[in-house]
């Protein structure tokens, strides 16, 4: 093998040979697992002799995958023209449990206990409409969020309270899709408080996303362009006729509306667009920080600019209008939005129809989301990795735990997603949520989720002891029901069941019987919550 590695083979040949190796390894793995299950009972007997046993059959020589992650769909440079053909839809067939679970995880923050089960059999279309057509203000059910001292959160001033304030809405709001879209637009127009330096301005922007989440994208884009947090984050108020600052001009095209590497705009367009956007300014004082954001025509470059080949005395409103009216905008918008919900790229026909729907509906976000959530690819396509904050909210929802600590802010940060602090203006990298650092952080997060409800193996005198007789099957079923019975793959469930069988050796001394079973219960809860199955939907 080493000799082959050193050989000067062509790169593509190398890759394919590695892939062959991997397939061979996976076949080998499958065989070993079959062998493992056959001899499982026999090997179990010997385990207690080792202080730390090694389950060798699982320790394969080749891991299943590299670390590339799953590519996001990117709008093509030459998209099909918008089409008025209807977008493929599942229609009004009764929704299955698997479909309901996926919908609740991807268009919201996971099912509340029994929620997915209760939807089964309802027409799928109606279930989607219940998400996409909420009426009136959201209702938040359950206790108000508090910090570890039981005091109300101070989202505008205390570190981490902003994160937890929003996490609370994710957990409790009955308008789950609105919160999910708010999160999507926080990623789409990614501003970080690390630069904005005002939790209040970030919260104002958050409210803007929420209020406009299901409206017209053009309206949203206009509002974002003059939103104070954005003006600070991308130097909109440093952009004036004397010294144009290109920061917003570039990102509004590259990241917000058109996309890079598609030939949609030139470097000259960036420079001209920056001139169009001039004129915003604000004041700053020790007491108020940044305030009084306003358009000042004396700061604006009133001359004529040429953007996308169109010449005029463009201003910031024209700038947004020109982007949204650009022939490559609709394909960018629908592909980017699609990518938040579906792991595979849209087909040419779907891309054409979604564009048609988007343009004919007056750039309606609702119309496009509604179509995506009814698309067969949404339900039949491959899994997606659940973002950390969605995972956190989902675990809390499944055990009906309200926000009673602000630890979620740093726990989520460690897992790769602190709300109001995306890593940069392109938002979080959805292809790389999971690695050895963030997987460990998810374990820590899951443990904190159990912190108020775990059975203490060593209770104080007079406190209830955990069952001294619970058998492995009952233990597993109890742990699954703790998380409101999520779906595990048969392989994972079998592996966890094997652990339940063998994690301590019988017979136990009488003083060990309850404590060890309590620990087993806690371990099972952790293994279920942190299983690979629970990281995807």
């Amino acid at each position, binding site marked *: 093998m*080493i000799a082959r590695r050193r050989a*000067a*083979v062509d*790169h593509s040949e*190398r890759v394919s040979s590695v892939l062959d190796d*991997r397939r061979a390894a996976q076949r080998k*793995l499958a065989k070993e697992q079959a062998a493992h299950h056959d001899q499982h009972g026999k090997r179990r007997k010997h385990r207690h002799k*080792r202080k*730390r046993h*090694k389950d060798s*059959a699982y*320790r394969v*020589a*080749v*891991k*299943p995958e*590299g670390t590339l*992650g*799953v590519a996001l769909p*990117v709008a093509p440079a030459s998209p099909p023209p918008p089409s008025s053909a209807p977008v493929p839809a599942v229609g009004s067939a009764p929704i299955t449990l698997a479909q309901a679970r996926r919908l609740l995880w991807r268009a919201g923050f996971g099912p509340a206990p029994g929620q997915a089960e209760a939807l089964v059999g309802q027409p799928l279309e109606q279930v989607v409409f219940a998400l996409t057509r909420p009426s009136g203000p959201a209702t938040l059910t359950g206790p108000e969020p508090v910090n570890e001292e039981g005091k109300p959160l101070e989202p505008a001033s205390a570190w981490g309270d902003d994160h937890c304030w929003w996490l609370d809405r994710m957990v409790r709001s009955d308008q789950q899709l609105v919160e999910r879209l708010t999160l999507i637009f926080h990623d789409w127009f990614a501003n970080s408080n690390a630069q904005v330096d005002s939790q209040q301005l970030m919260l104002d922007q958050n409210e803007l996303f929420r209020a406009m989440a299901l409206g017209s994208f053009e309206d949203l884009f206009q509002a974002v362009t003059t939103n104070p947090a954005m003006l600070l984050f991308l*130097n909109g108020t*440093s952009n004036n006729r*004397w*010294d144009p*600052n*290109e*920061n917003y001009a570039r990102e509004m095209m590259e990241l917000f509306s058109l996309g*890079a*590497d598609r030939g949609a705009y030139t*470097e000259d367009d*960036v420079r001209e667009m920056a001139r169009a956007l001039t004129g915003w300014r604000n004041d700053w004082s020790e007491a108020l920080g940044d305030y009084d954001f306003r358009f000042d025509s004396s700061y604006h470059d009133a001359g004529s600019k040429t953007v996308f080949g169109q010449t005029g005395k463009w201003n910031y409103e024209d700038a947004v209008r020109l982007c949204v009216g650009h022939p490559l905008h609709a394909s960018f918008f629908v592909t980017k939005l699609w990518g938040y919900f579906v*792991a595979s790229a849209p087909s040419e026909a779907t891309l054409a129809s979604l564009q048609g729907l988007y343009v004919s509906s007056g750039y309606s976000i609702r119309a496009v989301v509604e179509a995506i959530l009814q698309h067969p690819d949404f339900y039949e396509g491959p899994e997606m*990795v659940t973002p950390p904050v969605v995972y956190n909210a989902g675990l809390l929802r499944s055990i009906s735990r309200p926000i009673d600590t602000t630890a979620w802010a740093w726990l989520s940060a*460690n897992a790769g997603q602190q709300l109001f602090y995306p890593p940069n203006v*392109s938002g979080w*990298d959805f292809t790389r949520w*999971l*690695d*050895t*650092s*963030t*997987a*460990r*952080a998810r374990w820590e997060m899951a*443990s904190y989720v*159990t912190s108020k409800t775990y059975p203490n193996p060593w209770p104080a005198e007079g406190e209830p002891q955990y069952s001294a007789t619970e058998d492995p099957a009952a233990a597993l079923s109890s742990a699954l029901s703790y998380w409101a019975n999520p779906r595990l793959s048969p392989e*994972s469930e079998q*592996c966890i069941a094997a652990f339940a069988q063998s*994690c301590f050796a019988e017979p136990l001394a009488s003083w060990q019987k309850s404590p*060890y079973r*309590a*620990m*087993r219960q*806690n*371990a099972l809860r*952790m293994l279920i919550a*942190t*299983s*690979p199955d629970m990281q*995807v939907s």
Partner: protein
Amino acid sequence: MARSCSCDDFTRSQLLRRGAAIAGKGLPGIEPGMPMPAGTGMDRRTFLLRSAGAALSVYGASMLGPRHFEEGIAQAAAAGGSGEPVLVSIFMEGGWDALSVLAPVGEARYKELRPVLGLQEGAGRVFTEDETLMWHPAAGGLAELHEEGKVTVFPAIGYEPSEESHFTSRHYWEVGQLDANARSGWMGRYLDLVGDPDNPLQGLSLDYSLAPALATETMPVAAVSSPADYTMWAYGLGEPVAGPALETFGALGALPAPSPAYAQARAASYDTGLVLEEMANFVTTEKESGDHATVTYPPGEFAERLAVLAAMLHNGMPIKCVSLNAVGSYDTHAGEVDTLSTNLEQTVPALVAFQRDLEARGLDGRVLIQLWSEFGRRPRENGSGTDHGAGGVAFLIGTRVAGKMIGEFPGLTNLDENENLIRTSDYRGMYCSLLEQWFQTEAGLVIPEAATFERPVLVA
């Protein structure tokens, strides 16, 4: 404490024999906190080998067959002891301003282009290879290392045609090619070529998440934000149940996956299981060796990470490629004077401390540090900052670098069609030279169209 070269007296064949003998007996487990090597039946070298990831091969030998066993041992031995080269890639995020890091104070147009931001002649040290250039006052540490011949400077590095998007340009650097759709990182592809399927630490992101330049197609790599604290615990979970629980956590990662996202989740669990064992062993050895850095690092997370990295290398951890981010963002569209100084003040002294630590530990001959950024910034300032540009500055630091500037400073008289600094070296040429001269690997196996790039002499 074993030095990096301690296996002079411990050849590969000895290791193999030793490993085989131990595997035959069956190893006892090593718990964090257990006295070492008492009770293990191992000498320190074998113990280190275990912490270097060979433990799995030893344990799994009977299940996995002799071939893998042999390879695992050989790999770990090669990586841990024989002075295998290490590359530490440090990213200056946001596009650092080359014309302030190495300011062309001797250029006629400099003051015209930089009326506010321009540095005053004499404010920093003169760049000895081109006296029209001056080091930023906060980059004095780099000047010092440069004068010792330990810095190779690329005063105007980039590629053609240049890209002014952060994300596109950074991606090009990360994947080592001008392809927006490429997925694997350039260091990741190197690791795919020479890596060990059971050693995630070979590609190490010292960060909260994995660096894209380390993304692999097949081999495992790791992200470890805080190496001294890489443990996992849970409420109400202790021994004897915790050990098997954590093993099951890793075992769940080795099961079949029906989709790429599933596979990603499984791989993360599996690799986490491996890293958990390796880091626990590292922390134990490090704590008990009493053999710590003699160099004082400045405060801060960046310096801490470099300090732990030096200790990990010292302990023989099988690390080949490392990635981490420097302090701060260099995307200085506004307020550049303060931001740039602050960032450099927090980054450069830590780098110097790291180099000095490596020197004190005798590791400096096998470690190279690469400093890079996605692009330089626009020569003409915008009043309080600078917009995105093209030609930028990069450095290679290490005792074994050739120390000669690669490509000249192109001057400010002629700029490119976008009014940006002209490029006088190509980053892909730097990668090719690093692969060939540092890693002794054929660059064409990693960098597409490698033959078309000039290879600067980087290693003395």
